[in-house]
């Protein structure tokens, strides 16, 4: 089997969707938080917490759905704590976010050890996985079928959440409030929007989305939680947020691009291809895109100022 064969295969495209799911969820969450003007740098910690809680609850309570739901809620809870640290205690959101990430890393391992007396993760605990959906008609299509059908329910949910969050931000009353608070806090306060409440709600939603990505990691990609299993995915999602211009659809495209790069690196692991360099490409592109867009914005500002 050669390289082209491996990439052009149905399995590869299915893997792209699978690998992209956590990035997709967390990136959407990142967009919402960024738009309300409260950077959620703790996406990583929210994913990690949700992954851990999801696996633990589903294993201990023998209920897959309960695990998934509490996992998503725990992600939201971490985000609300971050919001509270900033809004109530005046903490810098970036630094508090770093603290939250550290807390999630230590807290999850502490919880696993306290409940299961295990160091590495919850591999000994039999926890459920989210169901895979077989779509009746589409599933029988020749090429598309195996790609689209048979994915985890979280993957479909993540894809559906892209237009939903775009609608939420651009068309709904809540989204209008979010953008108002983020872009013109003074004006928002003037017309009676309760900035604090909107920020809490947005952060909770943001954490829940990141939590969904985390739950997918421990309850679909595999059926257990391991130490630091998010492995920086929250930060990649954050990159996707900015690469995608802080818009749901843009961030989703960027997230899938990151997912593709990761799937490519996995797929090419068998060949003599430097996978590390492939993995590095999307980050490098983000840096370049960040520089280009910032430069363009700066030039526009200068142009506006001078003439």
């Amino acid at each position: 089997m050669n390289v082209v064969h491996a990439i052009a295969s149905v399995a590869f495209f299915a893997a792209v969707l699978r690998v992209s799911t956590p990035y997709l969820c967390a990136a959407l969450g990142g967009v919402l938080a960024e738009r309300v003007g409260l950077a959620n740098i703790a996406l990583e910690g929210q994913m990690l917490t949700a992954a851990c809680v999801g696996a633990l609850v589903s294993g201990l309570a023998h209920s897959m759905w309960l695990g998934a739901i509490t996992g998503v809620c725990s992600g939201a809870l971490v985000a609300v704590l971050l919001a509270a640290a900033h809004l109530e205690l005046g903490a810098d959101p970036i630094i508090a976010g770093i603290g939250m990430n550290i807390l999630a890393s230590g807290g999850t391992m502490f919880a696993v050890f306290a409940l299961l007396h295990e160091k590495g993760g919850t591999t000994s605990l039999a926890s459920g996985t989210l169901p895979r959906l077989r779509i009746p008609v589409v599933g029988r299509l020749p090429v598309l079928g195996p790609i689209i059908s048979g994915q985890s329910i979280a993957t479909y949910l993540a894809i559906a959440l892209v237009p939903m969050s775009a609608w939420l931000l651009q068309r709904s009353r809540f989204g209008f409030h979010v953008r108002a608070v983020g872009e013109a806090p003074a004006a928002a306060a003037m017309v009676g929007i309760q900035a604090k409440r909107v920020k809490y709600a947005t952060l909770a939603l943001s954490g829940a989305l990141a939590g969904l990505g985390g739950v997918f990691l421990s309850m679909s990609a595999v059926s257990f939680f391991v130490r630091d299993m998010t492995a920086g995915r929250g930060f990649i999602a954050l990159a996707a947020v900015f690469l995608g211009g802080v818009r749901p659809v843009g961030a989703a495209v960027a997230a899938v691009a990151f997912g593709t790069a990761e799937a490519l690196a996995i797929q090419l692991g068998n060949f003599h291809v430097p996978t590390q360099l492939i993995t590095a490409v999307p980050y490098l592109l983000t840096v370049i895109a960040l520089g280009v867009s910032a430069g363009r914005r700066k030039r526009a500002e200068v142009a506006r100022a001078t003439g």
Partner: protein
Amino acid sequence: MTPIEIEGRTAFVRQRRRSLIVDVVSTLLTIVAAVGIATVVVALMHRDAMGALHALLTGPLQRSTRVGNWLVLSTTLTLLGLAAVVPFRAGQISIGAEGQLYLGALCGALVATKVHLPSPLAPVIVSVVAALAGGLAGAVPGLMKSRLGANEIVSTIMLNAVIVQLFDWTLRTKLKSPRQVAPVSDNVLPAARWPKLTTLFNTSLGRANIGVFVAVAMAAAVWALLQRTSLGYRMRLVGSNPQFAEYGGVDVPRVIDWSFVLGGALAGLAGAHLLLGVYGRLEPGMASGLAFLGIVVALLARNNPLIVVAAALFYGYLQVGGDAMEQQTSVGAELVICIQAVIVLLITARALPTILARVRKGRGA
């Protein structure tokens, strides 16, 4: 000086001294609170709470090798804390120390293993190369921020990821030792390594090396830079009020560049410490998580380079104590990570003193 000026200066000095005391006291209270919370958690969950606390607090001093570990970790954390302090003081939130460290270690190892160096100067040359490489890695997000206005948080996180992959790739291909199965590099020649404290002082201090002195010297140098040089003054000016600095004729972009480059060089030096002082070779993931701890140390020290040394010693102690606790009792070292996180959150919660004051006032009224 006129009497009014003298009076103003005395008041200023007194106020500054008071704010320093408040800083130190609140930092100590934070630490006590975090350790207290951890103790309560352990006491609720484990029967062996007192034993665990004992191991955590006295463990690092029980064996000389643990003292060595403590010194090694504190050295790295001091350098990384300083690497965070310099850009922080210029108002730049650089999270790039991880990448800067890895690039420094990587370039240092390339020079140390591929180039024939004159032996007495070898450690110095390799260290300088590592610092320069770290500075270069810092210059990229610095220039992007100062010239283009690109968000430094995002760019440093992304560059970290790029450099970590580059490090991993180079280590597994170009630098991999043919004599080893694991992806590690060849050992650096003994002549190029930083001398060990064990040989200097004739006690077994594990991997502790002269990096301890390098770190303290760097802390003093950063303090002198910030407090006694014109560049340092401009950095603090830009950090506290960039508009005012610009109005006052400071070349703000250039100051930002320098803050990133100098911070990067310090992180690169931390890479040299790991390469030449601790491991003697490159290992995969040799600095994972340390850079974030450097930020925590900088926060704990409230961006004061001299206090960074104390904060790093405290953190190193906590970490080594955590390992001792894990070895001796059933309580895991994760607890230490939780303590660290609680410290970060309490420290960043700047409003805490005001809330306490409000509560006190409310009770008084």
